[in-house]
């Protein structure tokens, strides 16, 4: 019994040391220069997903979470709640502003669970220890200049005017 308790404590300590993680992933959109996003007249440039997770006591008191603050060495932070919509959205919109883009298709996903059955010797925690995760994603849209917009309209007209025909 004492051994199990001891190993559980070691495992929890290791879990806390390495858990809590903030990530900011971007990927260029696979579109050509003249494509637009449905519902928006701009050019979709990048797709971004921002994620943070951490561990909480009774789903209220933050124990360890990923660090959302930029230009810091610490990847995790103790006793500070960084798994919040405001903080993640702040980072996303700052990046969008830096790129000179606006946000489209902004969606939020949240997950919280108090069960740790995947962690050996820990099992359930009966509502004491909680894992929380928040993700926010968006497509960054660049508004092209009026010149490019005119060019796009002219190209559309040109493409429509080409007669359709089979091979000879």
């Amino acid at each position, binding site marked *: 019994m004492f051994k199990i308790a001891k190993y559980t404590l070691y495992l929890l300590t290791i879990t806390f040391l390495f858990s809590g993680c903030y990530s900011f992933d971007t990927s260029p959109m696979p579109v050509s220069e003249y494509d637009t996003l449905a519902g928006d007249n701009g050019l979709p440039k990048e797709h971004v997903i921002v994620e943070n997770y951490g561990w909480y006591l009774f789903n209220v008191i933050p124990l360890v979470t990923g660090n959302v603050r930029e230009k810091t060495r610490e990847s995790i932070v103790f006793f500070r709640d960084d798994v919040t*919509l405001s903080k993640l959205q*702040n980072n996303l*919109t700052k990046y969008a*502003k830096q790129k000179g883009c*606006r*946000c*489209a298709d902004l*969606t939020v*996903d949240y997950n919280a*669970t108090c069960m740790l059955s995947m962690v050996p010797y820990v099992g359930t925690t009966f509502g004491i220890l909680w894992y929380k995760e928040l993700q926010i994603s968006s497509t960054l849209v660049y508004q092209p200049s009026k010149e490019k917009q005119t060019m796009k309209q002219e190209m559309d007209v040109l493409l429509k005017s080409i007669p359709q025909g089979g091979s000879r």
Partner: protein
Amino acid sequence: MMKYKKIISAFLMLAFVTGCMTTRTSSVYNDVKMEDGENPLCTIQIENTGWFLFDVIPLVCGDPRFPNDWSCRFFTNTITLENNLKVLEKEMDKYKTTRIANVNSLNKDNFYFCFLLFRRACLTSAVLLEEKK
């Protein structure tokens, strides 16, 4: 000592089994606009969670009439999309807008103790937009 242990255990079990209706909002945009140059007012995420026996019998669920209040309803299934959208409507009234974008909903189910206990969650997110002048 035994009395305190019982109180603490009861409290822990209660914390473990309560359902909850929560809304999370953020108005931080750093002057960044939404699609088609729309001005956003607020990003909102609504979550309603509850516990079910065998995924059929509702034990305790969040109360959509009082979001963020730690109030819950016993033996009533309130984990529905309709309830989430009613709360969304109330938030739109609070922000005095009728315009909305990027509405997205998800259902999440987790089971525990060999399918005996189920935790259900219904999440809805959206961006509220300023009224056009």
